[in-house]
C-alpha cells in the first residue's frame, strides 16, 4: 500500500514554491514569481494555500513605501516536504524496481 501524496504539495506551483523556500532562509514574493514564471494572481492564491496549511510563514511589510511580501518555510513545511519526497521515492522505486545489487564476493573465500 502506498501512502497518498500530500495534496497540498502535489501541485506544480505549490511544489515549486516549497522547493525554492527549502533552499533559502527567506524570499520575497517577486523572487518566487521570477523563478516560477507564474502570474502574480496565481502565485498569490497558491501561497495563501501553503500558508493556510501552516507550511510557510508570510510576512507583509513596507519597503521604501512599497508593499513587500516575504515568505519563509516553517518546520511543518520542512516536515511535509520531507514526507512528500519519501513518498515520491517509494512510488518511483515501485514503478522502476532496480535490479538487486549483487555483492562482490572474494573468490578466495
Amino acid at each position, binding site marked *: 500500500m502506498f501512502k497518498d*501524496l500530500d495534496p497540498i504539495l*502535489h*501541485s*506544480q*506551483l505549490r*511544489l*515549486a514554491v516549497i*522547493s*525554492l523556500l*527549502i*533552499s*533559502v*532562509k*527567506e*524570499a*520575497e514574493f*517577486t*523572487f518566487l514569481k*521570477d*523563478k*516560477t*514564471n*507564474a502570474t502574480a494572481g*496565481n502565485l498569490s492564491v497558491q501561497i495563501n494555500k501553503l500558508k493556510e496549511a501552516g507550511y510557510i510563514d508570510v510576512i507583509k511589510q513596507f*519597503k*521604501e513605501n512599497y508593499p513587500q511580501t516575504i515568505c519563509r518555510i516553517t518546520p511543518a513545511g520542512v516536515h511535509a516536504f520531507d514526507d*512528500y*519526497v519519501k513518498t*515520491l521515492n517509494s*512510488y*518511483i522505486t515501485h*514503478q522502476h524496481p532496480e535490479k538487486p545489487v549483487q555483492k562482490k564476493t572474494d573468490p578466495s573465500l
Partner: protein
Amino acid sequence: MEEEKFSPEDSFRLIQSMIAKAKNTVADDSFYFLLWGWLVFIASLAQWVMKVILHSPYHYMAWWLMVAGVVASIWYGYHDNRKKKVKTYVEEMLDYLWISLFVTYMLFSFIFAKTGWENCSPFYMLLYAIGNFVSGRALKFSPLVWGAVACWVLAVISTFTDFDTKILLGALAVFCSNIIPGFLLKKKYRKMQFDVQRS
C-alpha cells in the same frame, strides 16, 4: 506555470530544477573582498614608503584608511540589503563569520596598541586566512581557499623577517587573498547573471 496533473518523475524534476535555481542565487560579495583588499594593499605600501623611503615617524597614519573601509562597507551593506530579494543560509552564516572576524581584528589592534606592533602582521594574515578559507568552502570557490593557503604560508614566513618586510608581505597576502579572488568572484558572478538572463 500551469496547474495540471503530473507524475512522480515530473515532481522530482521540478524539485531538482527549483533547488538548482535557488542555488544559482549567489550574491555578489566581490565588493567587500576588493574594497578591503585594495585598502589594506594601499595602506601597507603607503606605510612602507613613509617608513623606509621618507623616514616619517607618522608612517602608521596610513592605516587610518581603514576608517574609509568601515564607512564604505556599512553604506554598501545597507543599500545592498534593501535590494536583496532573497536571503540564503550561506549568506547569513558568512555575515556572522565576517562580523566576528572584524570584532577580533579590532580587539587585536587594541592589544597590539598596548603591547607593540612589531609582530602584528602574521596575526592579521591568519585572520584573513580564516575568513577566506571558510568563505571559499561555503561558496565553493577555490581561489578564496588558495588565498587562505597563501596567507598561512606568508604568516609563517613573516615571523622570520624584520618589520619593514612584514609590511610588504602583508600587502602580498591581501593581494593573493582578496584582490585576485575578488576579481575572479566578480567575473564568476557576471557570468552567472549572463547565463540566467540567457536562460
